[in-house]
């Protein structure tokens, strides 16, 4: 209990330190020509770097569209793993993160979230021959891929208290290889990511289609960048109102059979 108390005190201190930076050193994403965007490089459909080094995917297109609406003319993408995202924002290595980055209250103590720009749902991917897994509870006793810095495995083992055996990996791309190689039995993360994997690997894998959470994909910003957060929210609203979001969702997930939502999500709020 004492430790928790100290933990909260430290969190509060960090949060207030973040606020303190707001008026001074924090460079807002608003009104800048050049932005550095942290993205994933191994998630087909969302954030993926192809063999020629070009970034592609829904997150990449959202980042481009938002940056354009903010007035930035030059974008640099920087690959980040799930576990690097808060640190990269806090150290100023990147200006924003668009990388299937779920808004959670815990992360909100570290960074500012604009959006969400999309609400995905956590689901399950198993090998094509596996038929016994129908929902999250069927993961009991099975080997589940655990990606460092991701909240997905926690939703299974902590929130739903399902006794799966966690097998660590550093990226979801690695999980997919492990799944096919038989080193893990299931990957559980967002439907958008899994749909991309399923489209890529055909019959080798099976998408279970039993969603069990709302994952609100936010645009991560540096602590204190309230103005940037408000501007990003405005950009996302416009992205939905003028049909760009619907077009992007169709481009990247139209062929997966996922039922996508094309209306603007409820924002988290910047303050």
């Amino acid at each position, binding site marked *: 209990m004492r430790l928790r108390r100290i933990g*909260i005190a430290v969190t509060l201190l960090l949060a207030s330190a973040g606020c303190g930076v707001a008026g001074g050193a924090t460079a807002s994403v608003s009104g800048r020509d050049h932005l550095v965007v942290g993205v994933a490089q191994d998630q087909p459909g969302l954030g993926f770097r192809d063999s020629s080094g070009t970034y592609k995917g829904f997150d990449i297109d959202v980042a481009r569209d938002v940056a354009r609406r903010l007035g930035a003319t030059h974008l640099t993408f920087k690959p980040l793993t799930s576990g690097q995202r808060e640190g990269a924002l806090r150290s100023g290595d990147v200006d924003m993160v668009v990388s299937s980055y779920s808004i959670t209250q815990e992360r909100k103590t570290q960074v500012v979230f604009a959006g969400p720009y999309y609400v995905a749902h956590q689901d399950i991917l198993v090998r094509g021959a596996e038929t016994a897994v129908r929902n999250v509870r069927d993961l009991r006793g099975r080997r589940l891929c655990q990606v460092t810095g991701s909240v997905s495995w926690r939703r299974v083992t902590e929130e*739903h208290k399902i006794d799966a055996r966690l097998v660590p990996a550093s990226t979801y791309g690695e999980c997919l290889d492990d799944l096919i190689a038989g080193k893990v039995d299931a990957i559980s993360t967002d439907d958008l990511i899994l749909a991309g994997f399923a489209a890529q690997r055909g019959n080798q894998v099976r998408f279970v289609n039993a969603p069990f959470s709302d994952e609100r994909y936010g645009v991560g910003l540096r602590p204190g960048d309230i103005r940037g957060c408000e501007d990003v929210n405005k950009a996302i609203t416009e992205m939905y109102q003028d049909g760009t979001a619907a077009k992007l969702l169709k481009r990247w997930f139209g062929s997966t059979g996922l039922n996508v939502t094309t209306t603007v999500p409820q*924002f988290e709020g*910047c303050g």
Partner: protein
Amino acid sequence: MTITTTPPPAPARREGRVTGRLRIRTMPGRIRALAALAALAVLVVLLVTTLTVRNARDGLRVIGHDAGPQVVATGDLYFALSDMDAQLADALLIGGDAGLAGRRAAALKVYEQRRSEANGALLQGSRLAGTDPTEQRTAQEMLDALGRYERLAGQALLTDEQSRHAAGPPPAAVTALYRQATDLMKLDILPKAYNLTLDNGTKVRRTYEAKRSAVLRGRVWVALTGLLLVVVLVGVQIYFAARFRRLVNPFLALATVGAFVLVVVSVALLSSEAGRLRTAKEDGFDSVLALSRARAISNSAHADESRYLLDPGRADTYEQVYLDKSEAILYVPAGNLDGYYSLLDEKIGGSDFLGFYGTEAHHITLPGQQAALRKVLAGYQKVQHDDRAIRLVATSGDRRAALTTKLGGGTGDFDAYDQALVALKDLHGRAFDRAIASGDHGLRGWNVILPGAAIVLIILILAGVRPRLSEYR
């Protein structure tokens, strides 16, 4: 200005060096120039003060009479919409259960009431959206979507009545219709209402930052130009004393005192206006916005509890969303709902938690706020205790018992919590209204006072120099 800083006791000596610059050779000309300079200084003070007062007025208008009240209106709209869906879920859960028929009728009555509130608010779209075309379009889209929602809700209720199911999850046909309705509400309508609230919050924050700093900067300029005016008037006085051997020119003396008083009063007024803007924003508005959001999230979490019972196929998602919303309201670092319940019990007496109530608990500024907040927290704790009991019964498999637990104490406890929350929000709302009203009151008449004072000062200056001029006729 050069004339005041270098009074001309020896103009002849410097005449050669400053060729090309305006030199006034005759005494009446110099007197007139001094009078014009003093009048000009009066006009500069008038201009700077008027502009600064206008900034204060604009700030009060946007914060106090435009975006501020719209936050409350959109918050109420969200509540009405969210509660419609919650009441619909309750009615569908009760179904044809004879023992609970009264509760079903009550839920439908509240549904109708919320429907008319929401429709009323949306039809007055301009009150919610102001003149912003994007926001007006949003209000129109919400009105259309609400029409579709009501149609789906009607179908769901009808199918539910025909099925005459026992209390608990309704038949699949009803659930399918409810899913369509609730998805429309949760994914389309409610986000728009919530985002309108946030938009207005943004408007207030930006106006506040821009206008308050403009008032504070303007205050410095009023003081500086006012000081300059006093220096000019005193300078003219000294010049006359030296030239005409008069000790005091009463009109000029009066003008000097008048100018001094005007500047002091203006600076004091601007200081207090900046202070009132700050009070309205930080002690009133910020909390009203945060608590409006807390109320919206609380109500939708409460509805998620009903949906959890109504739609077992989505129960996992509804439970996760419930935890996520609870953490937004009051954050303690728990990994799951059970952990949340127990950490909440442990922490709620103190203030080491985050979320909307964390922010509120760390910013106690109003008399009665602490007590009102304690009531809210106690109510919230009770609601979470009820939630734990409901889920415990539900996971044991007895959905009817879970429903009666919810309808038994749960609904009443939630209403009590909501009332405590509204009371706390209103406490801040009154502080906000008071600050805005006194801000308005402070500025009342300044449109007349400022030009009036300037005219009087100029008349006094003219009256002061006229006898000196007449000596040369």
